[in-house]
């Protein structure tokens, strides 16, 4: 097994899992928001922020993947195709915090955001409070991203 392709698997995992999490995460509150807007079109502004919040995990995964590709020399044309297996595993391991935390937190955040969208229909003035709760879930996606960033950075 070539270490480079293990590192590339890490790149894929970071972008893929967070992307899956965010697409599910945005999909659920977006449907709820569509339902609310069918009755109350004036609630668009209040529901929009709740719908887009779970999309951030996908960006964290994408940035982590880009950073890994940069470290692998893919943008400078200095790719080491004979990378050692152990080094490849380091990249893969470094991708896991952002990938797993991104996937799980996006889905859980979407449930908070869906509740918020439903609340926006009944008590629009309380929407921002739910945004704060949703941001609490986001914290763990950020921690995962920072951990991955530091782990990638530490790879020689």
């Amino acid at each position, binding site marked *: 097994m070539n270490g480079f392709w293990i590192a590339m698997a890490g790149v894929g995992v970071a972008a893929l899992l967070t992307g899956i999490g965010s697409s599910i995460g945005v999909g659920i509150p977006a449907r709820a928001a569509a339902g609310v807007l069918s009755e109350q079109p004036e609630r668009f502004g209040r529901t929009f922020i709740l719908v887009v919040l779970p999309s951030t995990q996908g960006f964290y995964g994408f940035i982590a993947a880009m950073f890994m590709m940069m470290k692998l020399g893919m943008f400078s044309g200095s790719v080491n195709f004979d990378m050692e297996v152990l080094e490849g595993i380091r990249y893969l391991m470094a991708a896991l915090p952002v990938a797993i935390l991104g996937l799980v937190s996006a889905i859980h955040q979407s449930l908070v955001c869906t509740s918020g969208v439903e*609340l926006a229909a009944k008590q629009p003035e309380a929407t921002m409070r739910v945004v704060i709760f949703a941001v609490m879930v986001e914290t763990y996606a950020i921690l995962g991203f920072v951990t991955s960033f530091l782990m990638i950075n530490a790879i020689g």
Partner: protein
Amino acid sequence: MNKFETISVLDTKYAYALGCIRAREIRLLSKKRFEELISSKDVEELIAALHDTDYGQYLHSINPYRYEEGLERARIELFNEMEKLTDDPEIMKVLRARFDFHNITVLLKGKIAEEDYTSKCSPLGYQSVDELVGIFKEERYEDLPFYLHKAVREGVEAYFTHNHNPQILNFSIDSIMAETLTSYSENDFLTNYYKIWIDITNLKTILRLFFLERYKELANIALLPGGFILREEILLANFDRIQVLDDFYKRTVYYPLLEWKDSFSDLERAAEVLLISFLKSVSFESIGVEPIISYLFIRENEIRNLRLIFIGKINAVKDEVIKERLIV
């Protein structure tokens, strides 16, 4: 179904509907609004007060004394909207089945009396009334869904073996209905709602038969199967006096209902309050079909409350008496 399947399949399916329902819930009539409606001087004023509610469009152009037509139209529209929103024929089939059973009971009684009872049928059933009328006219009962076919067959059999007693026909069909409602729904919330409804109906039946001194004679036929408290358990308890009934229900959630055992109208109200509190238990759920089912039943209760206010106003019943009868 595991957690991820739940999130990806179930929630995305009902998320849109739930968003719509949450937006509509703010239009549900509050206790304060009901009190304002009760204080209306007469039916005309009541209809005017309902103008800006979901019922305004159904009531504004009709004769105030034909309010029932307006409320029925609102009810039909409610079921149609829920059908479109949930886009789940299986759930709607279970929700509408009780009207199908009502319709076959009516049509069977019409058949027995050799009279046309079509006007007493409800349009809320899953099977169209015209289709049912055609089946009964041509006696093509095998064309009915199997649960309705079974109800007709057993209802007719019970009717003829019990001296042509129409009450027995009701008991028999209700029994198949209870069995159907609790067996064919894949939704636990809906099944549990019907189970509680069956338990409460059985408790009311026991009390009624007790006071008519016909418990021993009719309990076996009148009690419904499918509740949390098994019909067989009730029959084994062999109630011969109220004390035994109290002891039997002591450890159940239904025990507080026995406080009103001497007044059937109060008992009915307390039973409805218990059912509504079960429905409201899912108010804070943000996913799944449960809040949608709950909304449907709560709206049905709202329509029933409005009917009570209309009846009260037409018959000059005191506001306080109407207020006592409402379930909010």
